[in-house]
């Protein structure tokens, strides 16, 4: 008789999450398509703006890891400097079958971690000294597994692509802002209407895509939580890690929070706390929801 766990917990089976992710991505694609249609049909110089946006996105894609590491002052450590961290990452990488990411440490009391890098091969997993001080080794491992799940899901690439046309919309908005200042003579004859349409369309796309991208980011967090729990075989480890990190987050001085705030999208728990009403604006789901998901998974694994 086979007591297969696979019958109870299917790796790929979080159908609700998959459906929601597809829905959000579909909406994004629709919004972006409509946006392109408006831009092109209004006689806008779409090619130029696409090229500029592509260069910007490409720059971000290729240098995001270096920028992220530099801006938080992370230093890459070798196995001799952090043997345990490396051993944990190696084993998790072997279990998840991703190339071993580089390991970096950020010297700050804020307990947090992030993964960056355009591809699994270029990935870096960073943890803060605060995280290492606050958490037990098994909780640190759960956090590392969460980041490795991000790497395996290629979240940097997915989010870069998902936000590409949002960048285009933002560029158009800026162009419109400056254009209205010094380009008014060109728009005087009949161009005014098109100008307003382009401006409004870009604004609309920018706002809508903002919420959709945030939603997608929250779903990717759930997915990484699930991946981490399944790689380590222990949802409870991640649950206690999340509880501890967020507990400590409440007591950290504000200055540190602001220092790291721009990197929120990468972090396991964002440094800025908002009320639950503000969740729509947030890159991360609320702690309660993440714990609830993990509890569900844990119950599945227990066969309950």
């Amino acid at each position, binding site marked *: 008789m086979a007591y297969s766990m696979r019958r109870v917990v299917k*790796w790929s089976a979080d159908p609700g999450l998959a459906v929601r*992710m597809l829905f959000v991505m579909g909406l994004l694609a629709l919004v972006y398509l409509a946006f392109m249609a408006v831009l092109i049909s209004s006689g806008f110089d779409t090619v130029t703006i696409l090229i500029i946006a592509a260069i910007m996105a490409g720059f971000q894609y290729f240098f995001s890891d270096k920028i992220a590491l530099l801006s938080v002052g992370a230093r890459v450590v070798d196995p001799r400097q952090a043997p345990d961290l490396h*051993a*944990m990452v190696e084993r998790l990488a072997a279990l998840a079958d991703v190339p071993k990411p580089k390991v970096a440490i950020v010297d700050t009391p804020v307990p947090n971690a992030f993964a960056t890098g355009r591809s699994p091969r270029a990935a870096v997993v960073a943890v803060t000294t605060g995280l290492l001080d606050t958490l037990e080794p098994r909780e640190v491992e759960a956090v590392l597994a969460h980041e490795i799940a991000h790497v395996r899901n290629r979240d940097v690439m997915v989010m870069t692509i998902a936000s590409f046309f949002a960048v285009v919309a933002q560029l158009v908005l800026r162009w419109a802002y400056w254009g209205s200042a010094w380009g008014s003579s060109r728009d005087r004859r009949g161009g005014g209407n098109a100008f307003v349409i382009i401006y409004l369309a870009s604004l609309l796309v920018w706002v809508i895509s903002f919420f959709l991208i945030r939603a997608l980011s929250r779903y990717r967090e759930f997915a990484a939580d699930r991946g981490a729990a*399944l790689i380590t075989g222990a949802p409870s480890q991640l649950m206690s890690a999340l509880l501890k990190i967020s507990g400590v987050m409440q007591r950290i001085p504000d200055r540190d929070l602001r220092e790291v705030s721009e990197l929120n999208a990468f972090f396991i728990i964002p440094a800025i706390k908002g009320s639950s009403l503000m969740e729509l604006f947030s890159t991360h789901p609320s702690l309660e929801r993440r714990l609830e998901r993990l509890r569900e998974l844990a119950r599945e694994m227990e*066969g309950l």
Partner: protein
Amino acid sequence: MKRLLDILLGRSQPPPARSEGLIALSTAVVTMEVQLGFRPGQEAALVFRPVESPYFDRASQELDELLALSAREAGTEYRTQVDRYRYRWVILSDPDFEDLITAVHMLAQTLLEQGFGEQLLAAVFRFTSPEGQPFYWIYQYKRGRFTPFAPRGDQQRDHALELRLANALQRELPIEPELERWYPLWGIPL
């Protein structure tokens, strides 16, 4: 295509374990011993990650029964221990190397059949170099490939020896071509 969908949906499923590559070691051991003078050890280990689940407990119970049976029938001794990173090691000892490989393979197969193939990290086989130094072949289940590991003292490896043996056994063993995946396992208890 499926990989693309998995990436889009963030379904980070590790690949299933590949256990069949392990068997190649039973011929390679002859080359190791006769040609290169590396004596095979009498111990081997299977390393895996336990899961918080009664299904897993039942699977590991089955493992224990299997181990007890093979101790009775084939005389393969065993012990289990949990390392500092909470991976479980089942260490088998048998004077016959062929039996060791078979026993490790059987254990891995059992875990696979129970649906816990994803938890398999590695199988470890010890050899002793002509100079009396330890050398290990580590079989990585996710890759289905072997990686060499020659630990020397505190967090040091004899890379030259590892490269030499990987090269020497290239025809006989499926060896991991990507050097950055030649993970060490410090403190191997065999």
